[in-house]
């Protein structure tokens, strides 16, 4: 790469720029005040050349600092924590609970298995959906599922539905800084016998900030992440300070995953949304990718919360299907088994119908056109 003196640069520094079109060195042109490629003649402003030089960091390379300061480690809990002998799950109950069952494996949990206390949750959203409300929710969930096997549904499964407070980490932070994106604009035109497309390439620089509040990531490795992500969102207007009285009649899973372990998931989701927000400012440009990410985290904070979930599962032909219901909104998620016979029938029916319609219509048109 060539070097040239940039009058705008810090005194005495030499800067080297490379042509984004052909990769050849670019030199400063005193007449135009731009940098010009010695090979292809491409010209761009010094600002653009400098913007291209800016380095970025990896998407998840953020410094969250002392974000766990708000967590009450070793706080005084008026709950009991038990461990299931069968599956190892850690379960919290209020002090008055006499006996309960493990929400994961269904085994009885013995009170003598108490293992101690942990972090005191900051928040809790009390259950709003009662167990009796589950039946219509499940009926509605199964409704119009055309590939569901006829013999799958059994009311016995609902009887085993367990209300559980699932531990979540709430990640809060500000995201600020700059982002540069490769973008382009294309124009079509005709030139003699040729169809031409001219693509103008741009570097878009954006700087700004945004704040994320209470992004939930489940803090239990025993919970399926896809189930927990899918029952979002919760209505945070009903979030209240934790009180063990809300646990009466329910059990609570205890966190077994440190916030540090869940941070990458939170980072990925936040960055995707931050990119989307900045991308939305590109106007008529077609954004081709992120060139340099200089966003950074500020005012990072983490809170511990208990969110209400009903869990139940169904056994069907040797496979376990797990379902989760948002205990506040009633949103039910999970994967249903697929009847191969019904799938084949639907495929054959649609295929035959379309075949008859299309080939019949085309044949008729051909006959009429004779």
């Amino acid at each position, binding site marked *: 790469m060539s070097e040239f003196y940039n009058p705008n640069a810090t005194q005495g520094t030499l800067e080297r720029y490379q042509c984004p*079109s052909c990769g050849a060195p670019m030199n400063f042109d005193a007449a135009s005040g731009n940098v010009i490629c010695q090979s292809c003649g*491409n010209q*761009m402003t010094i600002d*653009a050349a400098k*913007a*291209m030089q800016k380095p970025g960091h990896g998407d998840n390379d953020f410094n969250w600092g002392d974000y766990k300061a708000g967590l009450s480690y070793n706080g005084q809990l008026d709950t009991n924590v038990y461990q299931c002998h069968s599956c190892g799950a850690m379960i919290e109950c209020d002090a008055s609970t006499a006996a309960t069952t493990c929400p994961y494996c269904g085994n009885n949990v013995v009170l003598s298995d108490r293992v101690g206390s942990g972090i005191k949750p900051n928040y809790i959203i009390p259950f709003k959906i009662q167990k009796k409300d589950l039946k219509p929710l499940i009926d509605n969930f199964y409704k*119009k*599922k055309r*590939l569901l096997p006829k013999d799958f549904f059994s009311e016995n499964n609902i009887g085993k539905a367990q209300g559980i407070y699932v531990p979540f980490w709430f990640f809060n932070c500000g995201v600020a800084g*700059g982002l540069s994106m490769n973008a382009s604009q294309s124009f079509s035109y*005709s030139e003699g*016998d040729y*169809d*031409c*497309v001219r693509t*103008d*390439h*741009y*570097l*878009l*620089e*954006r*700087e*700004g*900030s*945004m*704040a994320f*509040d*209470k*992004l939930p990531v489940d803090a239990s490795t025993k919970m*399926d*992440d*896809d189930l927990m992500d*899918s029952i*979002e969102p919760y209505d945070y207007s009903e979030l209240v300070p934790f009180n063990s009285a809300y646990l009466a009649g329910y059990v609570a899973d205890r966190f077994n995953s440190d916030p540090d372990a869940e941070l990458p998931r*939170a980072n990925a*989701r936040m960055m*995707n*949304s931050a990119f989307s*927000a*900045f991308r939305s*400012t590109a106007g008529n440009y077609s954004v081709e990718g992120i060139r340099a990410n200089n966003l950074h985290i500020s005012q990072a904070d983490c809170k511990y919360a208990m969110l209400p979930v009903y869990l139940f599962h169904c056994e069907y032909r040797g496979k376990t299907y797990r379902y989760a219901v948002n205990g506040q909104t009633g949103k039910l*998620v*999970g*994967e249903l088994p*697929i009847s191969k016979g019904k*799938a084949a029938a*639907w*495929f*054959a029916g*649609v*295929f035959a*119908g*379309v*075949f008859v*319609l*299309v*080939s019949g219509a*085309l044949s008729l048109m051909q006959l009429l056109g*004779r």
Partner: protein
Amino acid sequence: MRKTRFCAFVLAALFILVSLPSAAAASAERPAWFPEDLDSLPGFYDSTAPRIVDFADVFSPGEEAAIQARIDWLCEKYSTDFVVVTDITTYELGADDYSFYFYKNNGYGVEPRYSGNILFISFEPGNRTWWSQAFGEYEYLFAGSNRNNVNVVDDAIEPYMHSGDYADGVIAYIEKLGELYEYEGELPAPPLTFADFKVPILAGLGGGLIIALIVLFMLIGEMRKVAIGSEAGAYIVPGSFILSRSADHYLYSSVTRTKREKSGSGGGSSFSSHSSGSHSSSGGGGRSF
């Protein structure tokens, strides 16, 4: 004085340069049979005029006899006239004008409207083509709603033209022309075969497969309502997104050029119509080979 001479010389040279092309065009060679007055072609019928005019000398005596037999059959059965002409040049007339003027000025066509057909085969280097035209009462064979009949006769002759079997091509042409006469220009549709339904069946199979797969994937999607979260848009504090700086830097341009496909004749027939004075017009068409 010298200046005046020089100007005169330049003017003379310019005049010669300008008049050269038109002089060359005016002196373009015309065949002996070509009419002197193009605006007045009275037409006449000469039963002794040859119905096979082989200027290009592509037919053997045996082939000429076979062609003549089919011409006699056609003319007798349908009270028409027919002439086939071959040549190694079109005299810059183009195949349509060549065949038109040859027919009109050499005694062809049954009176009173000089009805009949001509098939002209040009072996002009770089412009090998054939052209067929119908005249008088039979003009309707290749005109109006029957214009596609040009394709019908061209399809009949084309394989022979490409294989160099010109005599059989002419005979095939005459026989197809006979069919057109028989059915007064409206050939009955050929019986349907499986091949006629190949496109509808394939379209039905393809469309059915694609739509059935789309429907099946939609139904399967209904059964799987779980996914790892990838966005956090719902957790952005409302109004917190502030754009403090925005700069768009132009870097470079690139151009891709794609040569446009020309919509050539692709073996299809070209068409033309002719009219001359107050006499009958003609319709026809042809292809290259």
